[in-house]
């Protein structure tokens, strides 16, 4: 039980990641797939930020007084970059999905497959 409670933050992250993973695997709508990918990435973001948290630490802004404990700011900075990367990925992904929708008339993977299958090969 302690194993679950002590690491509740990790369990939460893992849960988020798994939800994302399930979405990518099980949803056939490409938009949903990309959203699921976003959820998966969010899980990672939370994971990084939670490992940067120092117990009892304040935000990493210079505070008055001696012996102030700061949280590790580096993961936050990294995640800023990761967010940008994630947004870019999602943008590219959605743009491609829009194109797919315009070309095939559907954004559903199974329908696309059916269309391509009818066309042969």
């Amino acid at each position: 039980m302690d194993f679950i409670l002590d690491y509740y933050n990790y369990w939460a992250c893992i849960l988020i990641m798994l939800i994302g993973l399930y979405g990518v695997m099980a949803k056939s709508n490409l938009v949903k797939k990309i959203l699921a990918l976003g959820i998966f990435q969010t899980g990672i973001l939370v994971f990084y930020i939670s490992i940067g948290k120092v117990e009892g630490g304040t935000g990493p802004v210079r505070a008055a007084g001696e012996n102030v404990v700061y949280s590790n700011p580096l993961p936050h900075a990294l995640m800023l970059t990761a967010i940008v990367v994630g947004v870019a990925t999602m943008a590219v992904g959605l743009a491609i999905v829009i194109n797919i929708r315009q070309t095939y008339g559907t954004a559903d993977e199974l329908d696309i497959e059916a269309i391509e299958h009818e066309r042969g090969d």
Partner: protein
Amino acid sequence: MLEHLRTQLPALIVVTPLTMGLIVALIGRRQIGWYIAMATTAGVFAMTLQLLMDVLNHGERSLTYLMGNWPVPYGIAYKADPLSASVMLIVAAMAAVITFYARRSVASEVPVGKLHYFWGLWLFCITGLLGITITGDAFNLYVLLEISSLSTYTLVALGKERNRRALTSAINYLLLGTMGACFYLVGVAYLYMATGSLNIPDIAERLQPIYASWGTDAPLYQKTVIAGFAMMAVGLSLKLALFPLHGWLPNAYTYAPSAVSALLASTATKVGAYAFMRVIFTLVGVGFAFGRLHTDIALMACSGAAIIVGSWMAIRQVNVKKLLAYSSIAQIGYIALGFALANRDGMTASVIHLINHALTKGGMFLALGMVMYRLGGTRLSDLRGLGRKMPLTMAAFTAGGLGLIGVPLTSGFVSKWYLVSGCLEGGRYEMAAVVLVGSLLALIYVWRVVETIYFGKRDEEVQVREAPWTMLVPTLLLIGASLYFGINASHTAYIAQAAADYLLGAAR
């Protein structure tokens, strides 16, 4: 000034294509994108050549560059050693040659209105690939991986003018590629948890006490490090397209514009292989990854399966581009097998095959690009009897095919020579047998194409000519280089052995 810039080479090599890519995008619709891209890739090639010389002549055989002059664990450090410098050289060389080739090919496959985007993305992709190779920072590697991947997804999607499946291929590639990158990112997080550092050599150093505490009463972060490495291994296997995580590769290579296929085939997976090597040998150390965790067995199983299955699938293809793509999966198996052996000959084989396969497969994709340019398709039936119509192109393709089989006097033979030596040195006779079977299967799929080219009968008498010289010359250059390195392997072998010695030395 020039002397100063020479010390800046590690940063300059990455920043130049980035800046130029931005300028191309900024200038917009005017069609000077290609000229800028050409000048940039040529310049980058010269710079990487200089860097490799510097690295090899340097006493420690490695150069470290501090971004913003921040000291090592805090800032991002770029680190050039024989391996990274030689991979950079091959990436830059391939980029320059393929860019020269790409002008007409791209113009015929991509709408005019998007050309400036194309060349901008092209340069970004090269930026990312070069950056992955030189960065010494685990997180920076992820970012650069995504820069190259994102531009690649878009470049692949631009193939939709020829075939709409480019779009579905691109989205599949995007989903899987992002997945792989995410796994790598999680792996980095684990290692960061355990060591508190992102600099690759620094992490390696900080892992030592953790390894030392193994098996004692108070093992430190044991599970964290193992889980981190597992995540990274899976993520990078996907980027490398190592069987069974190769699902994205065949379609992406097949439906991308010809020049993009060539660039991807000759550089992207190579850089993935490089990153994997770096993680195993420099980051976690071969003693841990192979000695304690026995990743080498898993890697060998995967690469053996890649060789057999990739070649087998290649035999069954009717689209020659896809055939080459599946053959790439098999060739990646050879590369992975080389570094899974972790001995001098195996590592040399891995690096030398990285170079040789880039030249050979790049050249073959370029040759197919010319077929595409003239005939608009690359199915086996399109190639029927082309040996008489496009003799130079088809000769280049055939010579490349011989290289894939590993016929003597081609560079593929040199690779296989070292690989089999490595297998025997490591006592892996079964892997040597797999290499042998792979050669036989390669013989079959190359043979199918060559037979069609020279002995197939064209039904209709279409007027087909050789492609323009601007496309022909780069192709012949690449294939010629691959033949040259098969006859005189001293340069490539020297570089590859230097890289292998460096990696194995670092591992000890």
